[in-house]
């Protein structure tokens, strides 16, 4: 609850900071402070210190899973702002408003990670989507940005319609007429088609939000057209938070009878893996490649839905953290490049060895190479499915796709290290920037050697309560 309140309040603070503070650095610092406050507030929530004690009427439910998801989102946003805050200043004049929108998005994220009612899920998704439409189009003179915003908006609202129809069906199918996710599937001997249809439509609309195929089409265009710093935000924090919400929905809402719907998840996951990985192969722009990569990674994350075991929930959190860290890192480097194509990275290792080395670690992590967090992320996903003993074909397919992913991730590494070129950056990265990148890389490796760093926390909290 703290996080919801604080993020909303700090959004307002940011709004007003635009009026009263002129210095961009100051605005950025206020934003950073806000994120730190959010992190602390979220942690306090965890420890049982609440700003307000409100009866939530089963609308929300705070558990470790959601709160840890919040922490990941806030922490990642903090790193993003520290790393790429300068790039946000380049987007347009309304810096304070951008921060405000980011905080409102975070508010939506907190709802999505801790909802207990479909109403809150709906509101959360909308609260995080609407600022994103704006942020996508925040470069007003950029036609690509405009186009991206309009596409995102049109398709987003379309998917909202689907989601609502799904919710309506579910409501109609629920025996007592409730939106609370625990009640959706209680005491039900057979599955009604209404329930299954609603579930499917809900799945589709959330699949849209996490850019799972074949509902992913907005992703490359929007990620490509949006200002890179916001692409980074959308591709990481927003996406993984919705994933946490997705796991929550299917675990709490439909987890008792997964045999009914897992086949759909499997189909979507397979399609996502296939389309994401294969299409990424031929991209020329690293930014667009990262968009497809995010689709491909989403395919992997969907595997968590196929088991919904403790391993899967641990795994999705780890995946969220690792994927966010690595992607934020890559986008941070990308923003410094003059040329977003693969050729633009040629020879970067000579010019900027730190950038190249950290970027390599992030890419290896995304590819799932051991010793980076990405390995364990993928490991948990695979392990969770293998444990169930079902959908082995999907597991095999997933690893084959992971092998394909090596192709496009390593193209960047090849460009940086093995090809000659200018590796031109827009401006020389500061020592602080490099320092944060190294920190990020260190985190990725830490999670790759000792994933308990994150998961141990979770277990610790579960067992101490």
């Amino acid at each position, binding site marked *: 609850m703290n996080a919801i309140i604080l993020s909303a309040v700090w959004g307002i603070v940011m709004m007003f900071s635009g009026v009263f503070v002129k210095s961009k650095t100051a605005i950025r610092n206020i934003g950073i402070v806000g994120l730190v406050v959010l992190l602390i507030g979220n942690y306090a929530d965890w420890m049982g210190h*609440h700003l307000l004690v409100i009866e*939530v009427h089963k609308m929300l*439910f*705070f558990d470790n899973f959601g709160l840890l998801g919040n922490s990941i989102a806030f922490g990642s946003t903090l790193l993003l702002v520290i790393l790429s805050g300068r790039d946000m200043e380049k987007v347009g004049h309304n810096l304070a408003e951008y921060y405000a929108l980011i905080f409102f998005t975070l508010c939506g994220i907190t709802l999505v990670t801790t909802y207990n009612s479909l109403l809150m899920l709906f509101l959360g998704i909308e609260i995080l989507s609407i600022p994103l439409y704006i942020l996508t189009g925040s470069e007003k003179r950029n036609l690509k940005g405009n186009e991206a915003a309009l596409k995102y908006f049109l*398709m987003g609202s379309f998917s909202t319609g689907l989601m609502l129809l799904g919710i309506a069906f579910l409501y109609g199918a629920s025996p007592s007429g409730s939106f609370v996710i625990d009640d959706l599937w209680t005491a039900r001997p057979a599955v009604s*088609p209404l329930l299954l249809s609603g579930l499917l439509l809900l799945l589709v609309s959330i699949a849209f939000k996490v850019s799972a195929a074949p509902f992913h089409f907005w992703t490359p265009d929007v990620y490509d057209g949006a200002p890179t710093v916001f692409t980074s935000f959308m591709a990481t924090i927003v996406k993984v938070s919705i994933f946490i919400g997705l796991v929550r929905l299917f675990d709490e809402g439909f987890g008792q009878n*997964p*045999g009914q719907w897992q086949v759909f998840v499997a189909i979507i996951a397979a399609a996502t893996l296939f389309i994401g990985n294969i299409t990424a192969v*031929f991209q020329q722009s690293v930014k667009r490649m990262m968009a497809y990569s995010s689709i491909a990674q989403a395919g992997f994350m969907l595997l968590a839905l196929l088991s919904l075991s403790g391993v899967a929930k641990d795994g999705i959190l780890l995946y969220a953290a690792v994927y966010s860290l690595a992607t934020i890192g890559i986008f941070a480097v990308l923003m410094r490049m003059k040329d977003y194509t693969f050729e633009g990275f040629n020879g970067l290792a000579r010019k900027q060895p730190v950038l190249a080395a950290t970027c390599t670690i992030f890419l290896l992590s995304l590819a799932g190479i051991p010793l980076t967090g990405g390995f364990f992320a993928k490991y948990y996903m695979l392990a969770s499915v293998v444990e169930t003993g079902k959908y082995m074909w999907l597991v095999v397919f997933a690893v084959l796709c992971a092998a394909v992913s090596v192709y496009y991730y390593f193209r960047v590494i090849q460009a940086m290290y093995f090809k000659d070129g200018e590796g031109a950056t827009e401006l020389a990265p500061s020592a602080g920037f490099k320092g944060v990148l190294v920190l990020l890389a260190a985190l990725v490796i830490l999670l790759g050697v000792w994933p308990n760093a994150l998961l141990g926390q979770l277990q610790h909290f579960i067992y101490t309560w």
Partner: protein
Amino acid sequence: MRTNFFMANLVWLIPALPLAGFLLTGLFRNYLSKGLTGVIGCGTILAAFVLSVLMFGEVRKEEFEPAVITLFDFINVGSLHIPFAFQVDQLSVLFLLIITGVGFLIHLYSTSYMHEEEAPHFARYFSYLNLFVFSMLLLVLGSNFVILFIGWEGVGLCSYLLIGYWFKNMDYNQAAIKAFVMNRIGDLGFLIAIFLMINKFGSVDFETVFSKANGGATVGYLTAITLLLFVGATGKSAQIPLYTWLPDAMAGPTPVSALIHAATMVTAGVYMIARSHVLYDLTPVTQHVVAVVGLATALLAATIALKQNDIKKVLAYSTVSQLGYMFLGLGVGAYTGAVFHVMTHAFFKALLFLGAGSVIHAMGGEQDMRKMGGLAKWLPVTRWTMLIGCIAIAGIPPFSGFFSKDEILSAAFGASPVYYVIGVFTALLTAFYMFRLYATTFMGGFRGGQSDRGATEGHGHSSRQPHESPAAMTIPLVILAVLAAVGGFVGIPEAIKPDAHLLAKFLGPVLGESRSPAASTGVSGGMEWGLMAVSVAVALVGTLWAVGRFSKRPELGEATGFGKVLANKWYVDEFYNAVIVRPLDLLAQFLEFFDKNIVDGIVNGVGGLVQYGSRQLRLLQSGQVGGYVLLMVLGILVLFLVELFTSGTTSVPQVLAPSGGRVPLPH
């Protein structure tokens, strides 16, 4: 092991000495003078010879029992136990004597023959030669088939190295490779025979295998073993079908031909079969095969030898032919006879080769007999010794060849008169081509003088006048001539003088025959006299015919008609080339293509497919919102259709492991 014999315990010294020689001359080849190299090279062999003689002295004693001296565990895996052990008995000691004795003489000869070489190469030559002797000793001393095999392959290696000794000449190298590869084909058979023994007897020790073979295995199994061993022998001992390497092996220096390709290595097959005669005695089928192959080889090689003009080639085919005799002997059970022939053959063939070397030396490297003639007057020692050698090989009494050959022939007669007839016919051919060689070389007028082939062997003698070789070369000739002349008296047939077959007595404990082989095969004394007379007569006919024909008017032109077939060795090489080498080559070529384009093509094709798929799939990303929504709705449709068609089938309730827990926070 249990032996009180001092020498037997020192048996390891015998191979160790040549090994030391090899290491010394090999490692320090750049620092040793030629003289020192010669001393080391010959000295080690001489020392080994002396030791062998001492050992022979002990082995001859009545109370001697065959001994196995284990040096160390070689391979000890699971139930398989292969010690590095030496067998000391009459057979191995006899071979020790032949190898070290003849080996020493040839080493001595080589010090002079190879004197033109630069010091490092000279040392290299001696190191190879010493290594060869070492391997050969290992071969005959080994107390199990694996050690035997080690020596077996070792001598093959040395043969390879020495044939290709003049490595600048690519033809020689090709010959060397041919020798090695053909040997390897045989070795493969040998190896599989070893595996069969391991499989059946769990051991490769001679003792164990032979004792278990009696009743321990079916005849079929033993036949397989013996046939495969024989395959090994055909490679090493140049029998049909693997004989073609031996004539080519004449590319090596002549002393090498004498030592390896005449006296010792090629008889390894004989040794091996004689050693495992227990097995052969149990498998009559194999014995027939051995006899037939031996006989066929003897005849075939003899016919080819008729038309060869290269002095060494003649000797080479003669060697193949004589080896055929030995196998005939083995095949008909005359193991002593075969070993006897090995010994006498070692004497006279080494002599002949060394003599030929002397001739070549004198001719400044010329090997073509058509360019020789009338050399008797310049090379008296060589001429007389060669004559002795020719007489010996032709089988004219009382020279050594007569006794050994006669023993085999009479045994062959005992087995089948057909064997005998062909054997005698081959003897006729033998006498004929040997004296053809002798007559063409030493008689008539000198046809050389315009030596255009010059220094193929590096003998850049400036004088065109042939000249007698130095003492280091003639002394071995003389010694060998004496041996070739008198060596046969160790095996006087029963018919001539009962109980005079010393060799048979000596080898009796090993080969299991104490009596004369002729007696054992049931040929009566009178009959044996008759057989002897026939073979002598045939030999004389061949001799006189050849001398008469070639001393005055040697064949100088190219052969024609059937002669051409013979001159071209029955086109066997060409046949092998067309049937084996060429198809393999084509297959290899095809596989290379296959590998690059099909196997790798599929791998690359998968990559290409991904690329292609990527190019096509991204077209879905048309940029059109309408298209995107359409595809989305289609996706929904598909999901609903799946639902419609699977509903009822997927509703298997599933119990999941409890998830991470849903712990509410205190509010």
